[in-house]
């Protein structure tokens, strides 16, 4: 871990301005991901801005019938919120499928969105990784690499890592938006699709945040109802990242939405795949995973995604 300076700023816009001003700044919320990465010297911020006093920790109703979730609302509090459990159950389920209760107590909504990949080569600083060190190469793309956990779609010739968040998959299927404030104090909202970037030839750039820009919250639109499910497939029953996860909303009109986790650098969803929901899992996946480029070791994820959706659609 490199030495760093630390300060606490209790206003989001001021924190953004300060982060812009001090080069090498990073925000720290729960610290459950950032501190691990700092110990491994994967992240080496020169300056930490603690945002836990910014008061962004409630969930309030919006004018159009939705909810605004503060960036510092913990994963535990969010998953247990009565309104979330009732009106957005897919989100509650996704949250409780993630990490462990100790981690969820510390993990924040903003931090969860920004957690980094679990690619084993990203975590080993002796290995080349374009995401860690642009231009260094990608150990996961070399012959003999361990790629069972890695991505099958949306990947590039420079990086095949996945985004590991469960919460983000549910947010994507719910059409949530990320709300931010920048160093000038301007706010904006981005859909999750706009927020997360595909790796292309810059896998180090993972999202649309500009320097200093801070996440203030996540906005959920009015409830869509329907039958909402989240199925996270993993090797062990708990405390493991998804091999594949499926967030599904089936509405009464026979329509629905589906998003996948564990397969891509961002929560994976396509309108044209949603449109196929009435035609079964195979039809959905033909659209949703069209263009997939799996490795030998992770091609099973294509079958697994389809079978997991089939399990959710099956009425047994």
């Amino acid at each position: 871990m490199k030495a760093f300076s630390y300060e606490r700023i209790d206003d989001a816009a001021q924190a953004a301005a300060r982060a812009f001003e001090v080069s090498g700044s990073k925000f720290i919320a729960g610290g459950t991901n950032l501190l691990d990465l700092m110990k491994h010297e994967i992240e080496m911020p020169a300056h930490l801005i603690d945002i836990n006093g910014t008061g962004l920790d409630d969930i309030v109703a919006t004018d159009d019938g939705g909810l605004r979730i503060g960036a510092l609302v913990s994963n535990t509090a969010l998953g247990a919120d009565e309104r979330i459990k009732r009106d957005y159950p897919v989100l509650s389920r996704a949250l409780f499928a993630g990490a462990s209760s100790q981690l969820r107590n510390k993990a924040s909504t903003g931090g969860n969105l920004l957690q980094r990949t679990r690619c084993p080569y990203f975590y080993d600083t002796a290995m080349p990784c374009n995401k860690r060190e642009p231009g260094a190469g990608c150990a996961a793309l070399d012959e003999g690499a361990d790629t069972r956990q890695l991505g099958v779609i949306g990947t590039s010739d420079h990086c095949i890592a996945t985004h590991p968040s469960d919460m983000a998959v549910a947010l994507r299927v719910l059409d949530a938006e990320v709300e931010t404030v920048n160093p000038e104090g301007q706010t904006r909202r981005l859909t999750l699709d706009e927020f997360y970037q595909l790796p292309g030839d810059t896998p180090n750039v993972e999202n649309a945040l500009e320097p200093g820009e801070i996440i203030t919250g996540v906005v959920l639109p009015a409830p869509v109802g329907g039958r909402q499910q989240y199925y996270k497939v993993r090797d062990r029953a708990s405390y493991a990242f998804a091999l594949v996860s499926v967030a599904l909303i089936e509405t009464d009109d026979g329509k629905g939405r589906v998003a996948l986790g564990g397969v891509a650098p961002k929560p994976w969803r396509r309108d044209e795949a949603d449109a196929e929901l009435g035609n079964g899992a195979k039809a959905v996946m033909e659209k949703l995973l069209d263009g997939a480029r799996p490795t030998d070791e992770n091609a099973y994820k294509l079958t697994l995604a389809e079978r997991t959706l089939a399990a959710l659609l099956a009425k047994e």
Partner: protein
Amino acid sequence: MDFNQSADENLFDHARIIGKPHTRVDGALKVTGTAPYAYERHDVADNPLVGYPLGSSIAKGRITRMDATAARNADGVAAVITALDIDELPRAKSNVAKLFGGDMVEHYHQAIAVVVADTLEQARAATSLIEVEYEEIPGEFDLDDAWKRLQDRDVVSHVGDVDAAFDSAEVTLDETYHTASQSHAMMEPHATIADWTDGKNMTLWTSNQMIKWTRKALATTFELDPANIRLESPYIGGGFGGKLWLRADAVLAALGSRETGRPVKVALPRSFIFNNATHRSGTVQRLRIAAGKDGRITAFDHSAISHTLPGGSGEDAVNQTRCFYAGENRRVAHHAIDMNLPESADMRAPGEASGLAVLEIAMDEMAEKLGMDPVEFRILNDTQVNPEEPSKRYSDRHFVECLRKGAEVFNWSERNTTPGGKREGQWLIGQGMAGAYRGAPTMDSGARVRLSEGRLIVETDMTDIGTGSYTIIAQTAAETMGLEMDDVEVRLGNSAFPAASGSGGQMGAASSTAGVYAACVALQGEIAKCLGVESARFESGQVVTDDKRVALRDVAPNEELVGEDTLHFGDFKDELEIGTFAAHFVEVAVHAYTGETRLRRTLSVVDAGRILNPVTARSQVIGGMTMATGAALTESLNIDSRRGYFTNHDLAGYEIAVHADIPEQEVIFLDTQDGASTPLKAKGVGELGICGGAAAVANAMYNATGIRLRDYPMTLDRMLDRLPDA
């Protein structure tokens, strides 16, 4: 005391304390976080410096340059020692890879430098400032390649005529299986505080299963007289065989202390547990079984390979096949293939854990071919003698009773016998079973007992790796001396104490309690001498002779009476086969769509001689079964076959079973005693639980799905395309 013949009826057959449930005497320390583990021995080494290791980033080659200037100048740094600064340290026999020194790199994360600083953070930050250049040499990392290339077979033993038996057999099986490399993944990493400030007398507070061996290894490594080395390891946060040896933590701490003239502490970072420390090698195994239509096995032919660094012995997966089941013709062959992965060595039930994981699937497959119930098939092929050497009989073997009892309690006869035939909603339900065998070796073991004011202190260099040694040793001493548990204090893991068996090979419990018994008998002799009598009984805190009763505290007021002895196990044992046996029964649910496998219940019926303490013994069996579940379903050190290292080197990537994976686990101990084992008629159970457990899970998965998997861990991707249509 010499143990030269099987024990007759003795005090342990009428025990008050031995064999009774006692919770851990060290339990309160553990659950309150006050047991002093090595890294936290602030009481003995005030304000030590902290060392942090740097590991090689290549698997094989030579270091051509190291520059530690920046690290030496970094904040708080007291010393940097690089591999190029010192010659390669001599290797103890128990170390295959070198622990430090010299320019050659033998495996990934081999220690190549240590930075010693005021704080952990400073030391860690400075290690990354060390510049290293290598000349890489291509290595061998692929066991399957080695298996394919393997031409002739190193036959370990061959009895009868295996080829002829297969030619004439009515039913045969011939399959190839894989087990994965596994990490001990114990909770406490290897850790040591070393005080070698004068470069002469070395004291280590460490976490090590084998005090005597490790002292010897230190003497070799640093060319010291063992008399100048002191080791303390009273509490160990898990070892599973990973702490049998001297490892880099102790070596680096010692070097750091000599260099700085201050105590230095080093804990291996978690990633080092996987690639710097040892692991269990994966195996490729081919198993052939031949039988008559009547189900009687006529031949076994088992060959296996595992990997090792040059000079090591790998994971010998064929041993149990020599003696577990009957059959006149048998051949086993094992090759340890030289490869350049990190050092493979012993892990809980070395050999048997991997061998039975395969043999017991093969037995299931064979039973199916024969149209027999797998329990009955095993019963039919039970043996009371070593089938390789029929003159050698089993001292006490109740495997058949384990099988029958297990079948009865598990309700085996009610199970669905059509693979894939039972479904509850989206889950396929299956039941499976497996046999378990593990040898019950013993090793000479010593202890000293000190009686003063009616209280007894037991001292032995035996270790407690979380197994319950403190408790069963206290029970043994209390029983023998006629005292209560509260009257006894046990002190372990100190090289100043008489040498015991240590913890390994599931021999610790049986051997060390026998040694403590011997020491107590010696003390009884001292007491009798004091009282001027030939012999006496010891009960209720008193010495009882023909004409008097004296409280133990009054035998020699104001004086300490000491008994010390070593129990020597005689070679009459070589004429016998002494083992432990179990039958595991498992129910699983496999998701019909996703292939996720979840355990529903497990039962283990165990024949391991006298159970010294059913509470601690049960923990061992369910712990073994939990580890077997990991081996069956998730645990695999993933190999990058080009770069030659284990990629998933943290506890997020290396998936051991977690609470949610483990359902109700039941253990039944048969009421058996094996007088050939020790005076207490006890045998070990520390490794038996992991033996066969993985195969029981695998067989239950087959029963659930009708898909026969032969490669561990049995993750869903191996069966997805064979599951029922979605």
